[in-house]
Every structure is written in structure tokens, then in C-alpha cells.
């Protein structure tokens, strides 16, 4: 916890030019949702709402996080509020990722894919048991097991021979894949679960990840197939 003096210094150092810059960055994160012609208006609305509540915002700051991060959170929340109230009036630009059918990707598209993979990794990290989800999705999509993720799920993975269990399922039916996952849970978490329970658990987590990728304002339109493509890119990078 920082001293009152430090907090005061941080807040006074937050000049208006920083406010404009941060607002621009926040609006750019919702480029898929906010039509281009509305970007400037939304940015000015964010700044206006911030300035109206500035005193309250500063008073509520407890000094636990950095002030700049706190401002990002404030501006992001204000922006989300504006989008919720205006979204019905806007025409939305969906599926920039999905619509790209080119065999060779432009630098812009490559950047977008990289951005999406980074976003996916954050989403997975905020879910319950993230490394278990990553490993099980890799099994489901028949990807090579990676010790870096397996180690985070079970540091005793060598003793439990998890790599051996995971490696021999490449040509297997889905039923056998879920049976292998159930075996992993039994070895690592000492729980006896049915493959069916694993299937339902993983489907739920995958649906949650897809829902969060698409965001509350239709930033994207992922489905199971496009999610699999994104995950494979993320996993094999």
C-alpha cells in the first residue's frame, strides 16, 4: 500500500493529455464495435464523463493499484456504458478475423491474429483451472502435449507419466480422448470422474471462452470451429 503522498503525486501527475491518450487507446480496443465515424464522439464522451466525476473518482481511489491502471479501468467502464447505450444505433463491423479468407495474410491481419491470441490467453488465464483447460483442449484437438503446460497442471507429471497417457491418443476416438482425460484427473487430482463429466466440464469451459472472446458488444463472432483455429494458433506458437 503506497503512502498518501505517493498517491497524491500520481493523481496530480495525471494530466489532461494523458486522459486524451488513454481514452483513445480504450476506444481503439473497441474498434470492432464502435463504427469509425463514431470514434471521436465516443472518445469525447468518455473524457466528458470522466471530468464530471473526476473528484469522486480521485476520492474513491485507495492507492492499492497504480493510478494509471485505475484510470484505464474507469475509462474502460465508462466506454462500456456508452457502448451499451448506443450499440443499437450503430452499424457493427463483425468478423474481421473470420471474414479474412486470404491464403497469405497481410501485416494487419497478422497483427490482428497475434492480438486475438493474446486476448485468448488472458481469457484462459482468468478461467478456473486454466492449465487444465489448455491441456484438455489440446487433447481434444489432438495437438502434441506440451510439458510447459503439463508442468503447471501437475509438477509430478513425470512420475504420473502424463506425457505417455497424452501421447498415445492421437488416432483415438473422442470417447477414448475423454477417458484419457478422466485418467489424468484421477492421477493428478485424486478424483474419480466419468469421461462424460469431463466432456460436459470442458464443453462448458469452451463455451465460456468463446462467449468471452465474442465479448458483451459482439467484438467478434467466434464459434466452435473458429475457436479451434485460434486455439491451435495460440497453442502451437
Amino acid at each position, binding site marked *: 500500500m503506497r503512502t498518501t503522498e505517493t498517491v497524491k503525486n500520481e493523481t496530480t501527475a495525471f494530466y489532461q493529455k494523458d486522459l486524451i491518450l488513454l481514452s483513445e487507446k480504450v476506444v481503439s480496443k473497441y474498434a470492432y464495435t464502435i463504427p469509425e465515424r463514431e470514434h471521436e464522439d465516443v472518445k469525447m464522451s468518455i473524457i466528458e464523463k470522466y471530468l464530471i466525476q473526476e473528484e469522486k473518482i480521485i476520492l474513491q481511489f485507495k492507492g492499492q493499484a*497504480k493510478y494509471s*491502471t485505475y484510470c*484505464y*479501468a*474507469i475509462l*474502460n467502464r465508462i466506454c*462500456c456504458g456508452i457502448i451499451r447505450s448506443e450499440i443499437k444505433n450503430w452499424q457493427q463491423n463483425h468478423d474481421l478475423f473470420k471474414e479474412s479468407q486470404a491464403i497469405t495474410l497481410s501485416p494487419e491481419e497478422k497483427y490482428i491474429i497475434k492480438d486475438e491470441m493474446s486476448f485468448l490467453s488472458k481469457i484462459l*488465464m*482468468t478461467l478456473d483451472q486454466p492449465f487444465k483447460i489448455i491441456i484438455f483442449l489440446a487433447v481434444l484437438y489432438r495437438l502434441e502435449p506440451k510439458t510447459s503446460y503439463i508442468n503447471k497442471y501437475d509438477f509430478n507429471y513425470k512420475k504420473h507419466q502424463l506425457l505417455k497417457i497424452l501421447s498415445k491418443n492421437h488416432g483415438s*476416438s473422442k470417447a477414448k480422448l475423454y477417458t484419457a482425460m478422466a485418467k489424468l484427473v484421477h492421477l493428478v487430482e485424486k478424483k474419480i470422474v466419468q469421461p462424460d463429466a469431463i466432456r460436459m466440464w470442458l464443453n462448458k469451459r469452451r463455451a465460456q471462452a468463446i462467449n468471452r472472446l465474442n465479448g458483451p458488444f459482439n467484438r467478434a463472432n467466434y464459434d466452435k470451429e473458429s475457436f479451434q483455429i485460434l486455439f491451435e494458433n495460440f497453442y502451437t506458437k
Partner: protein
Amino acid sequence: MDNNKHLSEETIALAAESLVNTSFKNFAPTIRQHIAECDQCAHEVQMVAELLEESTQKPFINSSTNSSIDIKSLRSKRSTPAFLIAASISLAIIASTIFIWIENDKVSNKIPTLSGLNEIENLYERTFTQETIDSLENLTKNTPKKNKTKENNSTEQNLRKEEVLLTYQAHPKMETLSNRFKNDAAHRGFGIEIITKSELKVESDKFQLNWNNPEATPLTIEIFDNNAKKILELESDSNTCEIASPKSKGLYYWKLLDDDFELIFCGRILIE
């Protein structure tokens, strides 16, 4: 600006910072749990983390680096001598062997007797239709006589009757599952319409399961015995599946699953 249902902006900021610093797993468990469950708060944390990452240009996940750090820290904690570990494993194996030996001894005294059959019948009353009881009685009547004492013959017949009744004994979990689809209720869409009845009686050496699969979706058919043990698994993208009847009479269950292994239907099969 605090919302009673959602996290405050400062908590969102703290969570985003921990996500960027790869210390999210050490964050307050209640808040982590809320983020795992609340899409709105998760979205805000993710967006703020993205903004923070862009401003600092610091990659927040590097599994290889983290794993090497984790391994090093764990190695320093491992100080238990190897022989103690080996001794405790040996003791555990011996103890479990003794336990299994004792349990098997107990189980061998629990084979159901004729006096227990009425209890079984009461528990699974619906399974034993009049036709089934008649066929069982005929089975016991038609049992060929052997050159044994009357007492031995009677014991053998009783045991056989017990065995046959056990093969018609319903499995509680499978019954619960199949009941959901009884009376053609709520087969789970996916564009598949089930034609076979929820309870199928089979008296021949093969039977057919039918459905409408207009989009030729790859489907999986699983057959289970009445101990919920899978005895057959098939794949099909057509509207029907022909299966050879199991050699043993009794109650079986079948499941139809889509290509994501979501359950479309569960039904019962009576082999008579």
C-alpha cells in the same frame, strides 16, 4: 462508482496488473472465483490488462520461463529421502493388498439368494413385466434334468433364476438418464429426430436403431449392459444403425451422441 454485483474499478485494475505480472494465481481467491464466473468483470479485467500490456509492451505469459522458475523452486523444497518414499509406497501396497483380500472375502458371502429376489423385484418393479416373468418361468421349467439329487437340482434352478433376473436389473443412473427421453420427450435437437421408441423390445438376432439425420452429421452410438458397462461403440452418419443382438438376454441401454459427444438420446433395449 462501486456496483454491488460487480467488482470496483480499483479491484479490476489490481486484477489486471496481476494478470500482466503473471501473479494472477496468487490473487485473492474470492475475486478470482468471481472473475471466473462473471463475464462482465472478466471482460473488464482482460481489456484493462490488454491496455496495460500495450503501454508497457511486456508479454505476460511465457510458460517456458515460468516453468523453469517453478521447477527450481520446487526442487529446493524436495528434501525427503528417497528410501522413506520407497518404504511408504511399499507399506501402502501391502495395506491395499490386505484390504482387497478382506473385501473379496466379504463379497463372496453376498451372492444374492432366492430370499433376496423378492426385494430385488420390488426395487425394480417396472423392469419385470408379466411377459418377462412368464419367460423366466418357462426358462426354469425347460431346464434339462440331470442325474443329481432333488436338492441339487433345486439349488441350480434357483441360481439360474437369480442370474437371469440380475440381467434384467435396471441401473439407477442409466434409468434416470433414459427417463429424460421417455415418451419422446426432449431429445436434444442438433437437427436429429429420434424414430426408435424409448424402450425397444428385441426378439431376433439383430435390431435397428433409427433416426432422421438430414445433414449426415457424424454420430456415435454406444450400447451398455445393465451394469452401465459399454459393450459396443459405433459411428454413423446415416439414418439407421443395424446391430447384432447380444447373446445374453436382458436389459441394455443405448446412447446417441453428436460429433461433439453431446448426448442426443438415451434409450432402453430389452433382449428377450
